[in-house]
């Protein structure tokens, strides 16, 4: 059993779990989650093994762990598929394994395993509580177990397979396969509660929006294949000649080089998958799915896949780079990333739903990563990707815990309020302490609280790179976005946990069970400590204590040695300032919101606030531009005209013409000729018979006369023939 075999085995356990659950244990909830979590543990363990092994290999970037098998025969050779572990996939594998495992464990508690079945619970609807009576006969409403419990674990298992498969693959084709599997699972899991109309709409929106991106990505992959004849990372991305060739050949499209155009097309796929502007509209709606889904798919793994892909094809993006100036494609990526970062951050400050804030936060942070890639800060992007996965998953799981706590309060008090609306919360720090502390840690990490959170180090890295390479616009915009990030994070924490409870439900919220809080604690540890693996060497005071592991390890993925940026105080100060400043402002504005109060920002910003709350009306715009026309075409063109008039018309015409021809043949051929002939034969036989039977009179003497005549005739004949004729 060598390390390559282990790499092959990593995606397998969740896939097997998927099949086992749907085929065998669908009705047995405990068996299903045991299978799923065991699979996650096995994959986690194998991933850790591989990571530990990979981290000890010298210069992993130059000789990664590779293994291929022949798959499809093509022409004169075989199409090989295989696995590759280089530093980028190793670190991705690390965070994917941890977050997947934590979320699997969390899901057991989230879906209320061990609770009774609900009173009116139906498959496809979220559970609404079961009435139990205690010893004295008092009835309480308690959380009830999710009816489709096993299906959930089956699909997150399939999803985990897709993500692992994407991460370990060594070529763009199998990456695409993993990509699409995750897209499908995302569709299914967003619409997990399919009986809700909003969930159904959201699932279709997610799938179709990412599909738009996927079309361009496939075009890019096809273009790459046609230009180079291969899709292997080793053959393209590690091959300076190929890169040089692709980077300098013009593609004929708006002055992009071939590599630039390919990179752009593939990047558009990432735009869809990672919900960047303009394909960002699906992610907030995807919050219709259960919170573990939001955490895993829409925070830690699937949306990270877009960043992973862009990091993977970074050599293509940078091909043809001259003297450190970013290429055209990189500029576009930087623009989209930066724009999305600020765009989503502005929307996030006006949202009421706890999960919506986090959704826009994810979009914004991914924008940070793309901005980093766009300005060439590869390692900073990798660093932020890994950190973000941990603290965003932590935040989402924390929000799920909050929602559960609020629902408990709702059941307890019978108060019919939205448990996800932050303005109904407040004071939960006293009711849900573990959730509070871990959420606080995650929130501070997101805001980039100095020194003790992972988010600080990774964001600082991006700022340093932007500043150090003189990308002023990017630097300033990202700094603003970071300010807003800290602001809305503190707004979220203050509204949810601090202050006093604004509703009865919040007063009676309770802490979640260990299967939910344990993952929170584990992820919180990472959110604090993991950042220390990437402290720059020349950072004052803390610089040389731990070597800059991230820089050394992740940096090896690239062909060229990238030098870390020289330390400069300005980005550091900016980063500390926006972080603490944003946190401070958020706290000040929201610390004394009373129940029933209006958002103070609304008074301050007026119409701007309404625009932000309505997400700049992009949904309405897309509805007008794309969705309604599509429906119109489907209804009027495809259905009414094509299907009913043209296709059905043709069929009806064929039918009626056949009828006419048939009737004609029947009346002019079948009846007169064929029937006539048959009848004529019968009739003439009868007539002949009638004629002939007149001979039979029954009178002997006539028979005898006949005999006599015959004899005479024959005699004459014979006489003539034999005697005269001789």
């Amino acid at each position, binding site marked *: 059993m060598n390390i390559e075999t282990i790499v092959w085995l990593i995606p397998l356990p969740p896939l097997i779990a998927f099949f086992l659950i749907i085929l065998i244990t669908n009705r047995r909830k405990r068996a299903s989650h045991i299978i799923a979590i065991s699979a996650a543990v096995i994959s986690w363990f194998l991933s850790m093994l591989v990571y530990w092994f990979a981290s000890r290999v010298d210069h992993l970037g130059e000789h990664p762990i590779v293994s291929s098998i022949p798959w499809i025969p093509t022409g004169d050779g075989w199409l090989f598929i295989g696995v590759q572990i280089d530093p980028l996939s190793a670190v991705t594998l690390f965070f994917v394994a941890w977050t997947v495992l934590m979320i699997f464990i969390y899901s057991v508690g989230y879906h209320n395993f061990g609770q009774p079945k609900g009173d009116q619970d139906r498959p496809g609807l979220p559970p609404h509580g079961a009435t139990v009576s205690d010893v004295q006969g008092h009835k309480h409403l308690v959380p009830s177990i999710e009816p489709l419990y096993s299906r959930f674990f089956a699909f997150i298992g399939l999803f985990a397979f897709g993500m692992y498969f994407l991460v370990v693959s060594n070529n763009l084709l199998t990456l695409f396969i993993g990509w699409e599997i995750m897209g499908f699972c995302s569709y299914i899991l967003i619409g997990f509660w399919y009986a809700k109309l909003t969930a159904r709409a959201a699932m279709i929106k997610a799938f179709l929006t990412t599909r738009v991106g996927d079309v361009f990505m496939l075009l890019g992959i096809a273009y790459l294949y046609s230009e180079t004849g291969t899709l292997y990372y080793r053959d393209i991305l590690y091959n300076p000649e190929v890169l040089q060739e692709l980077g300098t050949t013009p593609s004929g499209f708006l002055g992009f080089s071939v590599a630039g155009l390919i990179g752009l097309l593939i990047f558009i796929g990432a735009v869809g998958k990672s919900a960047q502007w303009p394909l960002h509209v699906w992610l907030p709606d995807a919050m219709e799915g259960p919170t573990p889904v939001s955490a895993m798919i829409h925070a830690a793994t699937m949306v990270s896949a877009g960043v992973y892909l862009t990091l993977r094809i970074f050599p293509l993006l940078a091909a043809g780079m001259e003297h450190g100036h970013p290429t055209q494609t990189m500029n576009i990526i930087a623009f989209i990333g930066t724009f999305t970062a600020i765009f989503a951050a502005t929307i996030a400050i006006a949202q009421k739903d706890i999960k919506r804030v986090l959704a826009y936060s994810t979009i914004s942070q991914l924008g940070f990563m793309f901005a980093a890639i766009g300005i060439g800060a590869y390692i900073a992007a990798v660093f932020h990707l890994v950190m973000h996965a941990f603290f965003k998953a932590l935040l989402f799981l924390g929000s799920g815990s909050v929602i559960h706590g609020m629902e408990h309060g709702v059941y307890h008090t019978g108060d019919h309020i939205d448990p996800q609306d932050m303005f109904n919360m407040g004071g939960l720090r006293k009711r849900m302490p573990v959730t509070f502390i871990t959420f606080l840690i995650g929130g501070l990490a997101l805001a980039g609280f100095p020194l003790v959170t992972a988010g600080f180090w990774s964001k600082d890295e991006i700022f340093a790179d932007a500043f150090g390479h003189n990308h002023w616009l990017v630097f300033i915009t990202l700094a603003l976005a970071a300010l807003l990030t800290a602001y809305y994070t503190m707004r979220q924490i203050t509204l949810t946990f601090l202050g006093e409870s604004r509703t009865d439900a919040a007063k009676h919220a309770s802490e979640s069970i260990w299967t939910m809080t344990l993952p929170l604690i584990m992820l919180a540890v990472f959110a604090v400590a993991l950042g220390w693996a990437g402290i720059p060497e020349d950072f004052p005071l803390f610089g040389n204590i731990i070597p800059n592991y991230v820089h050394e390890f992740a940096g090896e993925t690239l062909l060229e040695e990238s030098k870390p940026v020289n330390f400069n105080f300005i980005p550091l100060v900016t980063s500390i300032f926006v972080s603490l400043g944003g946190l401070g402002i958020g706290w000040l504005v929201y610390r004394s919101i009373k129940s029933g109060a209006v958002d103070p920002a609304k008074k301050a910003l007026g119409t701007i606030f309404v625009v932000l709350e309505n997400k700049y009306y992009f949904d309405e715009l897309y509805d007008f531009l794309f969705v309604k026309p599509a429906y119109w075409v489907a209804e009027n063109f495809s259905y009414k005209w094509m299907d009913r008039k043209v296709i059905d018309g043709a069929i009806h015409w064929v039918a009626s013409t056949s009828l006419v021809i048939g009737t004609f043949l029947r009346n002019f051929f079948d009846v007169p000729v064929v029937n006539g002939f048959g009848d004529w034969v019968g009739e003439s036989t009868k007539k002949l018979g009638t004629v002939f*039977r007149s001979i*039979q*009179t*029954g*009178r*002997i*003497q006539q028979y*005898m*006369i006949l005999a*006599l005549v015959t004899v005479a005739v024959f005699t004459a004949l014979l006489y003539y023939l034999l005697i005269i004729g001789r």
Partner: protein
Amino acid sequence: MGAEVRKTMIPISWFLIFAAALFSIGLFGVLSRKNAILILMGIELMLNAVNINLIAFWRYRDSLDISGQAFAVMVFAVAAAEVAVGLAIFISVYRRRGTISADEIDLLKW
């Protein structure tokens, strides 16, 4: 060579013509009489005519050969038997049909 043929015998053709005439008369009777018994009489006449033919040929060719006479006697016997059977049939028919007119017994008519 049988017994001598006497020079002064009448030519054989007289017998043959006579027999032919008798035959024709008998045939005519069979074909035209309605009464079944008269038809039988016609048949008898035809048989007798045949007999005359046979005897004439016997006498004029080899009168010593007994087979000619035997033949004629056979014919007589058959004629007699046939009349007996015929009359029996007529009686049966009469009892059934009430008539023995050849015109009216036409069961074989279509």
